[in-house]
């Protein structure tokens, strides 16, 4: 697991208050929302803000594929890496 992947998983656990989830429980490829971790649409909003703040990056609001960046840890890691 890269540092960025690990960083993102810890960010999700902290920002969303998932105290019984460990980084090992989050698959890089698995969908972040819906089934699995049990995250909802409010978590998506929270995570969007947390990612922007933590990595000092901005999500391009005009981009059509904002949702896809948050599909999985891998997608999010690629997105964050491309912005840094």
């Amino acid at each position, binding site marked *: 697991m890269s540092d960025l992947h690990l960083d993102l998983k810890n960010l999700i656990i*902290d*920002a*969303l*208050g*998932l*105290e*019984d989830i*460990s980084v090992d429980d989050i698959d890089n490829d698995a969908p972040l929302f819906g089934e699995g971790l*049990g995250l*909802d*649409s*409010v*978590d*998506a*909003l*929270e995570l*969007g*803000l*947390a990612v*922007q703040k933590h990595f000092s990056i*901005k*999500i*391009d*609001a*005009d*981009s*059509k594929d*904002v*949702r896809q960046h948050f599909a999985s840890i891998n997608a999010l890691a690629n997105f964050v890496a491309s912005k840094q």
Partner: protein
Amino acid sequence: MSWIDLQDLLLQQHTHTLAGSPELQHADLIEQSLRFAGGLKQRNIKCIALYLLDAGDLALALLGAWRAGVQVILPGDMQAQTQQRLSAQVDVFISDISQIHDFFTDPLPAAALALDEPLLILSTSGSTAQPKLIPKTLRQLHNELQVLEQLWGQSLQQAVFMGSVITQHIYGLLFRLLWPLCAGRYFIRQHLPFAEELQQHSMVCIAQQRPFVWLCSPALLKRMGSNLDWPQLAKVAQVFSSGGALPEKSGLDLTEKLKQSVTEVYGSSETGGIAWRQGGQQWHTFPQVCISQQENGALAVCSPWLAVETEYTSDAVELLSPQSFILKGRLDRVVKLEEKRISLPFLEDSLQQHPWVAEACLAVTQSGRASISALVVLNEQGLHHLRNSGRRQLTDQLRQHLSGYCEAMALPRRWRFIEQLPLNAQGKIIHSQVMDSLQQERPKLPIVKQVTGADFNWQLELKIPHDLAYFSGHFPSAPVLPGVVQVDWALHLAQQHMSLPSDFAGMEVLKFQQLVRPADEVSLSLRFEPEKNKLYFAFTMADTPCSSGRILLAGQHG
């Protein structure tokens, strides 16, 4: 701009386009609604449930059903459990436009819609399993729509209506669909739950030089980031927020960014709109709304859009004038989490139905975002599972069980397992202490039940907390007290009772013979030999040795 009353939407026509992608013309809406009405009539349908996220599709379905005299239930979701619950009264569940097309047949003639039949049944935006079903007549909706137009119609002109809320609940249904439909204002079919989507649609309006309005929830408004194009977004004609209070800080922040105040609307599925405000604490009643205070301090409401003469709320209120008031919180233990109404007593009952749970008490806590937390007393069976499978497995099972009763939103994220709930002398739960327990981190020390001894010889009776933080370590599915923690406890507890050298210098003859697990009761013997600077410790459980050893100390006496 022309207004068409709700009951006349199949008789009169707006001439301009109602919505886009795909384009919706009023003439087509009427034609298709009447064909849907024909199909419903032909099959003798009496009641349908609709879950259509496209507001244009919902308009077609509602008008068609109402023309056929068919009652419409709008559930908050279409999960299997919801359908199961409604199956006795619902003839057809519709969640896709193709199902409506399947009904199309020869149209019924256009006619006015019946105003005084309970043609609509709303469900509360509850996330507990038994959302209240609230029948409404079209007259109730019509009366409220007229007041909305009276209050804000003038200033909105030809604004495009777009919003983050779905049209299944009263706020979204009235504000995002029926109001623009009657007023002939263009509306965006889809709900836009993300700020980025709201911005994209706003930009289209700005490019076309059309004014636009937002119908949002506090959940979105309080999370709009700095990545948005605020100078452009400030062109929004008006921002509505309803479903729960917008935190004051978010309100001020938005006022600064948008150069205008958000218009908050206070109401409920039962009462419809009651009051509005633009900043500050004070609410102003809608025209034709009368308010009073009940004996228990809660607000009572009368208005032309109520089915009963007076609706009694559970919101504590301070009346400032016949037309203004301040809200003082709920009187019952019903909380709102991101605009979803959650009954804590209902969830507690549901949790207590699980075969492992003796008692449970829930509260809302804030960690990152606000969520439900659970303080749980396990019964013997539950304790057995905690001891043998670990905490993670236990909380997974309990969450799984609860998900049969509520939406994912209401599932507790934070769990604390304790021996008994904090009760006062009258046997009532002390909620402030519940809150304290839930906010604390999991314990890292044992519960000391009894201490005997003197000088350099001590005997402690200890209980291992159910929820010890160390049980989630390397073997989360086999919670055992790590050896290093036992050594640490021995030293820590010894230092509380004896004056010992401060520095740890090593260990000798360390032995671990039996596992210590959650809820175990153990004895700890401590003996210090000053001439050797050695602390002897031994943990035993019912006279069976668990662990023992010698800790070498050095340095100054503490």
